């Protein structure tokens, strides 16, 4: 994790809809400062979120049945992913971060 002097950018939704288990949803291939990464989903099913840096290393990975599944801490420059691990409900999910 890299704390930085980057400007804090607005929240945006980078993935949303209905999904099947064993799916990962990337933010578009853009790197930026990120304040947090979170997935809203059906409680009780496992979702994950994580950052990927330009060297293709995963950072700040969390996987949880809590809703939201949230990594609340910033990273200096990364793209974003959320993942549906075992959610079979088809409930609409929303993955959000900052930085566009």
């Amino acid at each position, binding site marked *: 994790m890299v704390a930085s002097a980057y400007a804090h950018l607005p929240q945006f939704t980078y993935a949303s809809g209905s999904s099947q288990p064993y799916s990962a949803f990337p933010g578009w291939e853009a790197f930026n400062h990120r304040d947090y990464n979170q997935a809203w989903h059906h409680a009780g099913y496992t979702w994950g979120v994580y950052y990927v840096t330009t060297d293709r290393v995963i950072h700040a*990975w969390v996987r949880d049945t809590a809703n939201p599944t949230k990594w609340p801490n910033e990273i200096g420059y990364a793209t974003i992913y959320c993942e549906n691990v075992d959610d079979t409900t088809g409930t609409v999910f929303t993955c959000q971060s900052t930085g566009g």
Partner: protein
Amino acid sequence: MIRGDHNKMKPRTRIGFMAGFVTAVGLLVAVAVTAFAGSKSESATTRTSAAAPPIADAIGALRSPRAQADSLPAQAAAVVASLAADVPTGAGNDPGVLQLSASRRLLANVGAAGVDLFVVPTSIGKVCYVITGGPTGCYDQFSNGPLVYGEYDPDALGSGTPISLYGLARGDVTAVFAVVAGKREPATLGRNAFFYSTRGSAYPTAVVAQLRGGGEVVYDLAPPPHA
């Protein structure tokens, strides 16, 4: 007995599923949740059971006297408060009103990074947690057995600070183990919460809850993702 809601469930003593997938990023994940009932017979539940009580009712620590150490540090309070901001519409997303003044510290100075785990009840019976320097979120029920749980790695996955396993436990849980490389490793079990840090690049493949009376429940875990 724990009853899941997945395909090809076997009756009564063992019910579970296994699956794997490759994602757009080359991610191979297999996941399984398997529940066993030992000598203890337990009421059947499902992940979405409407009959399961709100999780706040099952966390006895929330009804214990509150000490000064149960107060949220400022940064942790800000993190928890963020859970109620800009909540997207959708069933089950609303955490309710966070009752920050009722927080409890369930674990102190645990794991490789010496973190604390706090919980905050909400007006609708959910319980939100925050791990200092780590993840946060809200649970609504013990809908799939005696544990709710997660895993995280705060830095580069597989290096630096190792992966940790954490969660909340019902009051009838007497011990929690992480299964790492086929061996059971005891987790720290505090007041309705548990925590375990692996070593090196190892990751847990299951978490086991032992119950008062001798039964146990095993939750198999998917391997971490790969970029």
